[in-house]
């Protein structure tokens, strides 16, 4: 009995480890795909898909550069937070950690990584980093407001705050209209929110290379820079995974191909997941190619509009739609 428990824990750890390890590889690859797509849309040839991995590994070999101890250390804590947040979501394998109220915990782990990178970059003392971080935190405040509305909508409709009970969410109702309008709106809003939070054009305000000379990244060098970049990439992967998990009915997908061989459903699952991941990335990067950077106040006004729309979502959910 006790032995069984330990074996279960070991298996769980192992599976989650596989999830995180694949995420570590996939996140830079997705960035490579994005670069390729953007280049093709702008009539360039573009770097190979593995270019981001080469960049990161080269940076890790270099000697680090930072202006103070706090400045150098905080990106690593941000990295830890994102890695732990990954364990709460089923990705390639269906296994995930699950505790009561982990939906809120998940949101906080994601925003904590933003906070640590922001503090770290301001700690460099560079005014450009200060401007970039203050922009990022201004955006974070509104993002968290919308995230809270989304969490509350999910909690109202599913009567729980446990991610594994919510994912994939149940968008069907007993009587017409058969699809819940609040949850469909929620998915759209979440997609926009993820687009914003993953620092893409036109919301790439914290780095803003031509304007702020890389903003939050400005004083980092070597492994420290690589960790910040890696954290940003993993966060993109994490948020995309969250979106896919919300809508992908894994059980239905697996039962569609009811073959008796046990490993096939898992394989199908993983393949569908990865395909969706690539589709979303291609979609997001092609949207990105058509935009310039917003001014910070225009970006915030845009987000405020989304905020007001998400209030409609929670009110719809409260009255039962």
């Amino acid at each position, binding site marked *: 009995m006790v032995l069984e428990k330990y074996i279960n824990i070991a298996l769980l750890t192992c599976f989650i480890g596989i999830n995180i390890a694949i995420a570590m590889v996939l996140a830079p690859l997705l960035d490579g795909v994005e670069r390729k797509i953007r280049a093709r849309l702008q009539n360039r040839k573009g770097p190979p898909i593995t270019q981001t991995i080469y960049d990161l590994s080269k940076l890790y070999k270099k000697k*680090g550069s930072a202006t103070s101890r706090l400045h150098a250390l905080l990106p690593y804590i941000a990295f830890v*937070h994102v890695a732990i947040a990954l364990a709460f979501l089923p990705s390639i394998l269906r296994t995930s950690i699950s*505790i009561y*109220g982990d939906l809120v915990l998940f949101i906080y782990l994601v925003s904590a990584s933003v906070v640590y990178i922001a503090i770290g970059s301001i700690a460099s003392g560079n005014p450009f980093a*200060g401007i970039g971080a*203050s922009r990022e935190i201004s955006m974070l405040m509104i993002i968290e407001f919308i995230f809270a509305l989304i969490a*509350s909508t999910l909690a*109202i409709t599913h009567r729980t705050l446990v991610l594994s009970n919510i994912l994939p969410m149940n968008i069907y109702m007993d009587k017409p209209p058969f699809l819940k309008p609040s949850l469909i709106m929620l998915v759209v809003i979440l997609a926009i929110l993820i687009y914003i939070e993953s620092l893409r054009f036109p919301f790439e305000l914290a780095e803003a290379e031509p304007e702020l000379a890389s903003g939050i990244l400005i004083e980092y060098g070597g492994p420290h820079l690589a960790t910040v970049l890696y954290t940003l990439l993993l966060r993109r992967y994490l948020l995309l995974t969250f979106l896919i998990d919300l809508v992908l009915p894994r059980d239905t997908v697996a039962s569609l191909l009811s073959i008796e061989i046990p490993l096939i459903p898992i394989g199908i699952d993983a393949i569908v997941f990865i395909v969706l991941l690539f589709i979303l990335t291609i979609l997001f990067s092609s949207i990105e190619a058509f935009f310039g950077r917003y001014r910070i106040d225009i970006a915030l006004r845009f987000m405020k509009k989304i905020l007001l729309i998400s209030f409609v979502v929670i009110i719809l959910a409260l009255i039962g739609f």
Partner: protein
Amino acid sequence: MLTLLENLAEIIYSYSSSLFIASLAITIVLTLASIPFRKLGAYPPLVSSAFLSIVFSSYAILSLATRKTIDLHISFIPISTQLPIKMSFISISIDPLSAFFIIILSIVVFTSSIYGFSYVDRFIDREHLGWYGFNYFFFVLSMYLTLMVNDLFWFIVFWELMTLFSQFLVAYEKEKKEAVWAGYKYFCITKFGSEFMILSSIVLITILARSTLYRDIGLYLSSLAQSNTLLFYTLITMFLIGLLVKCASVPFHSWLPDAHPEAPSNVSALLSGSMIKVPIYMMIRLLYGFAKPDFFIGIALATIGTITLAIGTLYALIQIDSKRLLAYHSVGQIGYILLGLGASLTLFSIGTPFFKILATVALIGALYHTINHAVFKSLLFLTAGSVIYATGSRDLNTLGGLAKYMPITALSALIASLSIAGVPPFNGFVSKWLIYLSTLPSISILCIYGVIAMFISSVTTASFIKYFTTIFTRTSRIDLSKTRAREVPIPMCFSQIILAILCIALGLIPSLMVFTAISIAKSLEIPIETESIYAIPAFIGVNGIGVVHLLIVSLAIALFMPIALSLSRTKVSDIWSCGTKISLDRISVQAREYYMVFENVFHEAYTLGHVLYKYFVTIASDKLRKGIAKSRSLLEDPHTALPLVLITIVLLILILMRLRLWF
């Protein structure tokens, strides 16, 4: 282990009265004897306060561990039968609820007293330290006794003394005009207004109930709730308004951001960390102990809490004075506690099993946030005090770059900032998380309140990123090498380190607090849902949170080790300034510029405050110009008119009751 504890408990019980009286007598005599000493007079009272905190917290821990009430009767007048109410002795009774608040108070008192040893150096040439010590000690003592008595008469006596001494401490630096003015405003709003309200309510309750003991009043009020609902709600509302003024909830909060920053920093820690928790204590006793959970009061309290946390924190975001920013955050964090309390009252009164579980979680969250706020807010005030001690400045626009000179202060300020911001491995996260868990899935207005609380938590984060980075990391506008900026003396560092460790420990072992909260709930006979606490899902969640926090800390340390080793290899580079030789302090981001765009985009949040300010300033200046105004104070600050309003309400109620028109 348990038998050992019980034996120890027996011994302490048998000597408790004499120990109590002896420690009180020694410390009071020591304090009174040190009044005449102008320069050394602060030290004996500080030692006495630290000593009292140890003695009283041991009583409290004993009461919590054995789940018994410690009763002491201390008579100081020969018992006479003529007195209508039993005033001839103070009856001390420490039940788990008061024990919990005594522990909170003891943590703050112990650390800020030790901190005071060095901090009083600031005043040594300017002020009379004997009076500082006298006021400090009696302020601490009256707070303790307010929490310990089980008699409404003695409660109001010590409550008044608490306000009186804290007011003297606020106006301690008497050559500073702002300090004296803040003390006066504090007096007007709390003593003149709210305590009048509480006093009248208490007098009415005791006359009607014919007793002052908590037990009898509880019986009377619960029977009154059945027989005369209107009178019941009137009495409770009067009492609550008085308490809400004292804990600075929003319509009545304007005294706090003036009064708390002006006091010496360790007193600010006491005021924000523990004094505004005393009304919370009485609120729990009133709404759970005396009355049964009530739907309307719960909703009202949750609404006030949400408004308080939103307005308090949004105004904190625009502050540029370090201690004033912290004081506004005290208002905001009290809002969280009120929201948790109100939500639990509402959900208990609905009473279905699902809501009862949520209500239990909300109550645990409110109690947990009370202790967390005490720890991180007093730590923040102490670090702000250390910065004042080192540089003499409170202005976030000019400070900067102190992390290099004051590493311990900087680290503890960082920990406290992350705690109050609710970032995962620290304590503030767990209590806020519990409050969200109870409000978000409740299908009512409460889930909107929960969403607002979550948003405000990120505003708090933003505000403290500003607070920490402007003081400690950004390039300074002052030339630091010329000032005396260096690490503060050992007593101050010691207090900061203790509180910082508590911030981390309370985040890593959250289940301890859940046990405490549940034993408090059981002692108050609150109908919590479960036979065994393991059926509360949040408890399992809390354990999970503890594990996740441990995971974060251990992973961070595991990553730190190689990096800390390689840091010596890290090239410490100069800050890049576009290749030119501009001095960075000229172009560094100013505190008021951090979130200026956000404030412009969300200007609606500040509209009401601006309109009110403009309106009152126009009236005031008009009347001053015409020479109508004789009462200067009323016009300079319209909030000082609040007591008149409250007193009018009380008089109206009394007249209506007297004429039997209404009740």
